[in-house]
């Protein structure tokens, strides 16, 4: 009887429950909740369908430290991987849990890699740049014509795995290039300009700034993630525009909330420059730095010219005028100042060779611990010297043809090399065991895996070298074939 009663009560309860949940199948089965679910994945997005029974509340543990109490949740994972999803169903008193392992992955085309190396190379005729992606830095001899061929590539900055360059089809403006999960280089947005683009600088995921040579008084501010122009810095109040209304921005450095733009007189006569400071937050002109007449900047310095303390080291290229040459060098805007340090004027070429005739200095970049590297012309070409000696140094006695030959030799002979500059002490040393380049060769300094690396191009070499300053040792990493090595970009490092 007791048993019958107990049965009766249970039946009644089931009946009641089943009435409430409209579940006829439950009739005569266990009333404990049974958790169950199915799911569909779409890349990182998973749509769950709850198939539990006898439960009225649920807790989902998605396995990525997030949970949900929805019945049929839709969850998007932050990254691909295998996750253990636990669904717990409760009927108020009893609960039941089920576990499934879910693997989600992005379509490789939608993945953006943030490590690896993009190595650029250009064809001899200049028509083509090849962009090659390598997950690991290659060694030996590498054919660099295997990647993506583009009509134009002017490297300007890297940030969060993306490369910012002038547009690859030769149009005016800038492009953001990413590396997808297949290792392919893809376009992730453009910033069109009316005039030609000369530089773009990215500060962080939300803020970057670029120039449009058609509109030098305004520097557009953009969002590097969405590649949308969000504002601008109005520099029209800068005094330089009164003197040279068409002055254009040759290059720029970002320090904190401020942009230091190097303005060049237009038309370009190579002997005037001005640095103008603008604010990224207020979008306004701040001040024009006291100029240092006779110093010329080149657009060839790297984005990383700010040291750990916030000092800006601005290189200038020098003037290759045989009658009145100006040696290239480095100026400093101290961390706590918005003006040049009048006492800082480092001329690396002349430190090593005071008699240097054509003292060009380019490709400068800051490394770390007060060290910077750049390409300096260190010697005079012997043939050029002989020519000069033949007239006792009096250039006016040379014929036009001889002067041209002199310049040709000065520009092309392999008399330049990368130097290590201790910016604190002013000491300069040639990077050891590195083949020399012409002063205007397409050699480059870059930082790869935390160490200084040098792309060296001369008549017989096109290779990448690694230099370890701690042990003062240089080794060849790889040499290029098929096309002339351009840049080696470690996309894991920002603002190279």
């Amino acid at each position, binding site marked *: 009887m007791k048993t019958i009663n107990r049965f009766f009560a249970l039946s009644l309860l089931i009946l009641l429950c089943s009435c409430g949940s409209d579940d006829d199948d439950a009739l005569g089965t266990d009333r404990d909740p049974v958790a169950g679910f199915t799911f569909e994945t779409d890349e990182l997005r998973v749509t769950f369908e709850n198939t539990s029974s006898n439960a009225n509340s649920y807790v989902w543990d998605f396995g990525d430290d997030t949970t949900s109490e929805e019945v049929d949740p839709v969850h998007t994972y932050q990254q691909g991987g295998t996750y253990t999803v636990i669904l717990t169903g409760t009927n108020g008193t009893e609960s039941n849990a089920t576990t499934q392992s879910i693997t989600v992955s992005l379509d490789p085309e939608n993945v953006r890699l943030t490590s690896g190396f993009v190595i650029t190379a250009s064809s*001899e005729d200049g028509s083509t740049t090849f962009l090659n992606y390598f997950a690991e830095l290659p060694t030996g001899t590498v054919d660099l014509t295997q990647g993506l061929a583009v009509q134009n590539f002017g490297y300007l900055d890297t940030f969060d795995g993306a490369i910012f360059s002038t547009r690859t089809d030769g149009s005016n403006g800038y492009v953001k290039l990413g590396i997808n999960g297949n290792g392919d280089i893809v376009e992730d947005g*453009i910033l069109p300009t009316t005039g030609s683009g000369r530089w773009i600088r990215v500060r962080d995921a939300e803020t970057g700034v670029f120039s449009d040579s058609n509109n030098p008084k305004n520097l557009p501010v953009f969002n590097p993630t969405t590649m949308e122009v969000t504002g601008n810095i109005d520099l029209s109040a800068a005094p330089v525009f009164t003197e040279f209304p068409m002055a254009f921005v040759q290059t720029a450095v970002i320090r904190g909330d401020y942009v230091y733009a190097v303005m060049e007189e237009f038309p370009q006569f190579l002997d005037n420059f001005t640095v103008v400071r603008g604010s990224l937050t207020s979008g306004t002109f701040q001040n024009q730095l006291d100029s240092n007449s006779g110093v010329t900047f080149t657009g060839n310095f790297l984005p990383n010219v700010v040291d750990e303390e916030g000092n800006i080291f601005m290189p200038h290229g020098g003037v290759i005028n045989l009658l009145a040459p100006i040696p290239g060098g480095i100026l400093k805007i101290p961390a706590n100042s918005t003006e040049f340090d009048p006492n800082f004027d480092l001329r690396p070429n002349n430190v090593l060779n005071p008699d240097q005739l054509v003292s060009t200095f380019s490709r400068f970049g800051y490394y770390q611990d007060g060290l910077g590297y750049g390409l300096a012309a260190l010697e005079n070409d012997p043939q050029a010297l002989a020519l000069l000696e033949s007239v006792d140094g009096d250039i006016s006695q040379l014929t036009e043809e001889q002067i041209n030959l002199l310049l*040709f030799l000065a520009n092309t002979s392999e008399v330049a090399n990368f130097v290590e500059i201790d910016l604190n002490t002013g000491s300069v040393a040639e990077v050891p065991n590195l083949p020399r380049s012409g002063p205007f060769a397409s050699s480059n300094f870059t930082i790869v895996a935390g160490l200084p690396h040098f792309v060296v191009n001369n008549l017989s070499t096109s290779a990448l070298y690694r230099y370890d300053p701690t042990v003062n040792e240089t080794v060849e990493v790889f040499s290029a074939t098929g096309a002339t090595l351009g840049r080696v970009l470690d996309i894991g490092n920002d603002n190279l």
Partner: protein
Amino acid sequence: MPLKCTWLVFILFWGGFGCPYSYGQETILDQEITIAFSKATVREALTQLSRQTGYVINFSSSKADRNRRISSSFRNSSIAKIIKDVWGRNNILLEADGTAIDILVIKTENRKGTITGTITNNLNQPLPFVSVILKNTTYGAPSNENGNFSFQAPPENYVIMVSSIGYETFQKAITVIPESETEINIVLKAKDEKLQEVVVKGKSKEQIKREEPIKVDVVNLAKFQTQPVSVPQILNRTTGVRIRQFGGLGSPTQVQLNGLSGAAVRQYYNGIPMEFLNGGINLDNLPTNAIDNIEIYKGVVPIEIGTDALAGGINIVPKEIDRSYTDISYEFGSFNTHIATVNGAQMLNDNWYVGFNGFFNYSDNDYRMRNIPVATFETFINAQGNEQSRIVETVETVDRFHDVHQSSFLDMQLGVKNLKWADKISISMGFSQRFDELQTGQRIRARPAGETEQRASAFFQTLKYEKKLKKNIQLKYNGNYTLINEKFRDSTLNLYNWFGEIETENILLSGAEILNEPTLRDGENFSTTHRLTGKFKLSDRFEFVLNNFFAYQRIVGEDPAAQRVPLDNPTVDPNTIPSSLGRNILAAQLNSKWLDNTMETSLFGKFYSFSNKTSDFNQTSNSIVFDAIRETGEDFGFGGALKLAWDAQRYLRIGYENAIRVPSAREVFGDFIQIVPNFLLRPEQSENLNIGLFYRHDFSDRTFASLQVDWFLRDLKDLIRLDVPQSPNLPARFINQAEVESQGVEIALKMAPLKRLDLDFAFTFQDIINSEVPNENNTNDSGKPIPNIPQLFYNVGLGYRLDNLFNSGNALAFFGNYTHIDEFSLIFEGEVRNDANFIPVQDQIDAGLSYRLPKLGLTFSLQLNNLTDAELFDNFRLPKPGRNYRFKIRYEL
């Protein structure tokens, strides 16, 4: 008509032939009388005749007073015959009017008659290029492609003689009447039954030229002149040639020949490089009606044409004046295109003639382009809450709006033939003018040019002279003098978008739409060229040709917008510094025939010397040197060609040339703005080898098939290219660097499978490889195909004509053309395909029809271009027009 009949009667009388169709008017000259003279002078005999007949006989007594005594009797002879016999010379014309007879004495040497006719075989097929001569004289001519011949000879009795291989020699007595046409139709009988089946075909002059030992393609323009097609369109249908344009009618053209282009391929007008005729004649605006043919020289260029071409050249040969004619045409079509041409000639007498040649072109060129990047401004509220504008770029379909082309040309020629001291001499004077709006540079950009324009006008004079000295020396001279005024305007602050609107958001800061800096240049160029050719026939087998070409060009201008050079105080506009360019090419060629004339060879050498002069300033050093400097140099090139013919239908041809191209003034001296001089530049060098086979088979009833297969190999060294260094501090300069190796196959198949159907197939496959190896460690680009050149293209042409529609004599012709160009890349290809670099496969179909009414001299034709409205591209992916039409009316008199 009655007049002509009278002439016919005279011919019959004088020639002594019966006249089966004599329906001429009976005159007193035909009256038959009987008379006898005894030792009478001409004057006495004519007086006696006058008395007996009662007719007045008028004659020039001085001509009749000769020591001629006549003793003869005439029985029932016509008065005309009696007078003629009495006169005793063939230099009179008789005219009868009522009862008076005029004896007109003619100057025989100046009053030649014309002999015309047609030569056919007994199957009534015309026999082209068969020689017709008057026996024991030097008068004669070959028949043309239709078997027709025409030539002049002094009035006399002759025996006309026609002989051709496989036919019996034809001989017949004829009389030539002064200032009149004697028509004789000749049917040649085959020698025997066996040969009767073999139709011996003559060759057109184009075919003869094509068969010269030096490889040349000749496009005869006659068949295109009724069609509304342009010179670039025609050339694009031949093997090995691509003409690329920057837009519609009148836009600049670039010729690619065997994959090479730019300065390596020279363009000539009547043997004179077009660069010296600048401003007037261009491939793009030259109407077809004034052209006789176009010669395409690939690799080896004969010395009579060649200057310092590296890869060959294209020579436009204008019509030669040998008869009076007028040819007027008017063409209109899509995009408001109008082309009117007039050319013609008038023979003033047997020797003097005037010729004229003119055209007028106009087009809006406002064709539609698809998938064009278009930049516009949009406003937004920026982070600081201010209104700001930013650029957005979208892909749109747009119409060109600033691309008007207008040009005109007029050339008058006065010439004379058969003078004592000149076989031919002519002087021509002309004026040309053109105006072009420029919508884009070489490539389509997101912003168009809305104001840039270019004008040029030229005045030119040409003197041509030809003289045969003795029998074996021929002299030719062609001198040219041209003054050109050029204007280039690229200076505006207006910023345009592709919808033709001026953007108010911003200005064009650089002030120049296409160039880097504003330009308002006015140029005054002067050029003169002189070519002297001597041909010496040493024997039947050897001919020696000596050719000297001299050209001089002086370039000066001014540009108020140009950057001043701080040479002096005040500063100097570099455009005002004159540059000059002189070059001389002396060449000799020996042509020989061997092995019973089945083998022909040509050997030649060319000696180049040049002298370029300019005043220079140096931007690199900032040290300005202002001195006239002169750059001179010399070089030597050579080559040879061989042709081996099995018979008229089959031959093998081999040509080789070691060619030189002297650097141009611009390459040596730069452009005063962005390119600095390079005095170390060497001439470009090229080795060219061509081997070709030709075979033709004739079937019955004028159907035939011919096949020409050519293979070429070119090895070019020291090619000059612009070197733009990475450093913005270092200006660009031209350098000797590129080395290119190219080889290719060209197949031309022509046939007439039916009497009225013509089929043409032209196929080109070429492999143009960069062979430059800078050094052992740097093999950059080496072995890779040179970008931006199609590797494979072909053309199929078809024509069908109904020659005598409804027995009206009117002709209806249909023509169709299909061109295929394989996909090719603008730049070197990487492993990963980048669609942005490719010019996709292009298939173009053009079709049209023409209707000719020969009696009225009228032709109407209609052509539809790009029938399928396919997306077609030109230079650097510049879109070409979609479906469009042209309608042409031509009137010939």
